[in-house]
């Protein structure tokens, strides 16, 4: 990439400079206009009392400082309680979806990756197909499957289990468990974090939310399975066989050899999963719109609802920024816990490692794809 001639280089690079900017201009313009500027405008709206009529940049729209943020975060009133409820709902959703979908996609990838497995393409297609469909279509399908007299309850009745009316059932699963163990729902529990009671925090995700959790696992495990498959195939067979020679059992091989080598991909999957679960909106909008009893309310949907339905634009924008902050915090937390230095590097390091390993593999064995 080094040009040694002086004059041609300068004019060549000048032309490249201009061309470079021209080439990049549309991208910068569109992304700047529809990603960067909106964030600035929303920041202003979140600090103002704009009521939705006219433009937020008109004179006459007052600056109210952090009032919108305080109204949402102090747990007072309906706004505060709704926000607290949405945080609780999304927290449990993320808590359950991320590990389950990671485990299932890793498991599927491991099984599908077996050498001499017939129908590999068929299984890969079957598991990945749900990820291709629109979340709207899948939500409609889910509303049908999990209806009170729907397919899921029919199948459960084969095992003698009387399934709940999934999307109408607002009881938390831990609440059901505690009730079954004899702990009664307290009558007037005091408010705690974010304006909702400790009992509601403990009650866990509602049955309706669990239906959404199943849906999330259904639709995203295929995508992550592919990520794991790519990583597993890059690792290759030698390390595994080396461990086998050393006498390790299948489980030990998996746990002490494969999983550590999957660390970068694992980190990617966990990060993407966390970011994705905190943004859940389409499914709620299409399916339950926050019901039953606000147990499927999420901060993303609440932000939309506060602004577009209740015309509380300042509050809606404030919730959106708080959500942004939450996502950043969780991503950083994960980085710290998993000890990775830079989230963008693993994919490059990962690819380098894969390339190295695959060259080794090519040299060492005669196996095909």
């Amino acid at each position, binding site marked *: 990439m080094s040009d040694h001639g002086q004059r041609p280089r300068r004019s060549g690079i000048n032309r490249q400079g201009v061309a470079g900017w021209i080439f990049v201009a549309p991208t910068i313009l569109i992304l*700047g*206009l529809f990603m*960067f*500027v909106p964030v*600035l*405008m929303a920041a*202003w709206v979140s600090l103002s009392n704009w*009521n*939705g*009529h*006219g*433009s937020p*940049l*008109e004179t006459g729209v007052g600056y109210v400082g952090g009032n919108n943020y305080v109204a949402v975060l102090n747990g007072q*009133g*309906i706004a505060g*309680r*709704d926000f607290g409820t949405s945080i609780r709902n999304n927290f449990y959703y993320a808590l359950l979806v991320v590990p389950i979908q990671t485990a299932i996609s890793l498991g599927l990838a491991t099984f599908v990756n077996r050498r001499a497995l017939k129908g590999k393409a068929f299984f890969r297609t079957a598991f990945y197909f749900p990820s291709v469909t629109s979340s709207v279509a899948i939500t409609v399908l889910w509303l049908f499957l999990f*209806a*009170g*007299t729907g397919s899921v309850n029919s199948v459960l009745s084969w095992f003698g289990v009387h399934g709940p*009316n999934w999307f*109408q059932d*607002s*009881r938390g699963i831990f609440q059901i468990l505690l009730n079954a163990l004899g702990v009664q*729902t307290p*009558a*007037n529990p005091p408010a705690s974090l974010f304006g909702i009671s400790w009992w509601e925090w403990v009650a866990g995700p509602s049955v309706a939310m669990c239906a959404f959790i199943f849906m999330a696992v259904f639709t995203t495990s295929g995508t992550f399975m592919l990520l794991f498959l790519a990583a597993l195939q890059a690792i290759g067979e030698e390390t595994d066989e080396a461990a086998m020679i050393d006498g390790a059992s299948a489980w030990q091989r998996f746990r002490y050899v494969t999983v550590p080598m999957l660390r970068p991909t694992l980190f990617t999957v966990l990060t993407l999963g966390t970011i994705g679960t905190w943004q859940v909106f389409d499914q709620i909008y299409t399916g339950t*719109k*926050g*019901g*039953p*009893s*606000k147990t499927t309310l999420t901060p993303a949907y609440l932000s939309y*609802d506060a*602004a*577009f*339905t*209740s*015309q509380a*634009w300042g509050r809606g924008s404030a919730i959106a920024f708080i959500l942004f902050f939450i996502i950043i915090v969780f991503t950083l937390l994960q980085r710290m816990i998993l000890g990775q230095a830079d989230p963008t590097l693993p994919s490059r390091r990962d690819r380098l490692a894969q390339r190295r390993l695959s060259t080794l593999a090519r040299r060492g064995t005669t196996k095909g794809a």
Partner: protein
Amino acid sequence: MLIRRSAPLGLIAAGAAVVLTLTACGGNSTSPTASGGASGAYTKTTNAITVLIGSSGAAETSSVQAAVAAWAAKSGISAKVQVASDLTQEASQGFASGSPADLLYVSTDQFSGWAKAGNLEAYGDQLANKADFYPNLVSAFTYNNQFYCAPKDFSTLALVVNTDKWKAAGLTDADYPTTWAQLESISQKLVAAKQPGLVVSNEIQRLGVFVAQNGGSLVSADGKTATVNSDANVAAYTFAKKLLTEGAAKLNSDVGAGWGGEALGKGLATMVIEGNWITGVKKDYPTLNYKVVELPAGTQKGTLEYTNCWGMSKDGKNKGGALDLVNYLTTTQQQLQFAKDFGVMPSVKSAASDYKSQFPEMTAFLAGADYAQNLPAQPGVAAVLADLNSQMAKLKTSDPKSILDTEQSAMTQALAG
């Protein structure tokens, strides 16, 4: 290096510049047509008119579409009906975007909030038949001493009974319940006779009848104090909870119906609490036979009343045309036509006697108008009602007093500011 460090500042400066440019362009969202406000007539233009409705079913949709089409043919202004799947959200987004529907259904809960935010045009004084509307309906749609919009109709809730199932359980006309105790025992009798009993929705827009029947209400008579957790209310919801827990009543969602009419039509309920629009159910379920009776009394007779008005958007592009359409839709004959199609009661006094003679089967609804209660409609109350609804969805497993106590403070806050 130098470029890098100043880049973020440069970016923010660029961003701010763009935002300021945006302020200049696109800042005028006001409509170009002349509008006189409360005084002076509106100009009629040839701009097409859109009407946003929240329909109770196919019957209402086709009825309104027919009426609007007839007016469009007569006046030469093109007009179209849009059926909303979520009226509040679609209307709100329309207001915020500056391109709302010209006319829309405005319910009492949303009315004061939208009027206060300046989304609605106060055209009430321009109506041709202004003096003919019932005074309590006019006051429901008056804000800041301005009469905003024409009430389109009103309805009350009553007890709707599937007469085939009633007879199959061995009950007769004399057995229609008139007290709470009778409601409970009749429902249990039905269940014992292997017929479905009472099926209710879990919304306060339906369960609230028990509050009215017990002499309670959510706000005081002058609308200034919250009375959500009064003893009468607590007792009313405790009774409702009792019906649900002992199996005398079921929820729509439990039996797999979307609303009372569907439960009745599919044979999943013998008694439901619904309003005038139940007549539309005949279109979907032609074999259904039902009778409407007044709701049983608690300490007194009580029911809930609903009314909507034809709201006109302030940013509409053809206010003269819209006013003309409203005048057409609120004439006595047109209202009687609506009554025939989907059962609602006309909002004009001149239609009262015709309604009584043409629709004797609806006397229970009309009788309810005498003792009906309205849900509170002050600005900010809609959110409290929505929250109360979400709590009431868990009525079977919750304590009514604690729910009402929570909402008492919310309601106090809403009424205060």
